[in-house]
């Protein structure tokens, strides 16, 4: 996760702490996929995972006033999610996985390695379909849009670096990445409305 992304998280957190509740909605929208997938690894049931994820976000909201930014927001949220999932299992007399999921995952995530997991709340099917749709959409993009998006998403380069590589202004890079995202969005719309 880049420093600027963390800055955005902190800005949103500050808004919530100032009493702007809708800013929390933006944080939920940003992290819900990751949190849902993480919790699913514990509970192994889609509907349960949704309930526990919801509880995670509610707990996070209530505790957000004490968040001081010592750790990245996602690391903090990740810990709440793990604790909530474990509590959920214990309350139902179910076994808590020993070492399947660890806080170390969150630390790795902060180091730039995304949480990768094929176990999804949809049991892999829908998530996999979504991913396939996204990759299909990218494959069909004009070359300059595809290159700009891939340099950003896969290589994590800044707009400035991409501009240098593609020998174009930063504004053009921003526009190309945006147009690529619009195409991807069109392709995944059918799955979002299921």
């Amino acid at each position, binding site marked *: 996760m880049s420093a600027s992304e963390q800055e955005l998280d902190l800005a949103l957190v500050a808004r919530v702490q100032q009493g702007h509740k809708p800013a929390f909605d933006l944080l*939920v929208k940003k992290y*819900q996929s*990751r949190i849902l997938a993480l919790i699913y690894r514990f509970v192994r049931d889609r509907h349960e995972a949704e309930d526990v994820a*919801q509880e995670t976000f509610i707990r996070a909201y209530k*505790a957000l006033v004490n968040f001081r930014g010592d750790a990245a927001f996602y690391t903090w949220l990740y810990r709440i999610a793990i604790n909530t999932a474990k509590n959920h299992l214990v309350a139902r007399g179910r076994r808590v996985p020993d070492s399947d999921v660890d806080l170390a995952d969150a630390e790795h995530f902060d180091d730039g390695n995304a949480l990768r997991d094929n176990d999804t709340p949809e049991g892999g099917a829908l998530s996999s379909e979504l991913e396939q749709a996204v990759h299909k959409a990218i494959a069909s993009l004009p070359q300059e849009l595809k290159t700009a998006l891939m340099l950003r998403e896969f290589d994590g380069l800044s707009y400035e670096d991409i501009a240098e590589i593609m020998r174009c202004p930063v504004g053009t890079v921003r526009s190309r990445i945006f147009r690529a995202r619009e195409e991807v*969005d069109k392709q995944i719309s059918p799955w979002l409305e299921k």
Partner: protein
Amino acid sequence: MNEREQISALVDGELPPAERDALVRRMEREPALSDTWRRFQLGHAALQHEAPSAVDLSARVMAALESEPVVLAPRALPQQRPLWRKTWVRATGGMALAASLTLGVAMVWQTNATPNPVQVEIGSIIRDGSHPQVLVAPEVAGNDSADTIPQVALNDTDRESAYMLAHAEYSERADDGITPYARVAGQSEDQ
């Protein structure tokens, strides 16, 4: 640059702070913009193999937050030692209490001793076997009446009090001054 393009840049953390903050405020107010934010995040999650989920929890979460009276917990303050725990406060407090008590005892003594004061030296307490003994000097000079000489004015309780006061500084809780003893003595009196 339209709002959607701005949101795309925001996903990448590429908006200047002022622009970012203005856009965040708009997204908070306009559901269409926040939905674009969600969809772009979903595409981003798919490209990062972050197990994208089509389920939108945000509506459920925000509805739950609206329906229950959420009281944000107060910000935790850094732990501070109570004033009475500070060493210098304890030391001076203890000394002040001891001085006040000594003064009080002395005044009571003077009042009781008039007109035939008996010189009692509280510090001259020694052990006689296992029992403390108070040495009382039978000074009778200038007495108007020998009947008023309080040679046996110190009963057992008084002796114990004098002993405890004199030895308080050697107790385990000497830092607390005579407070523990005063507390116990006060309870005994209540009983």
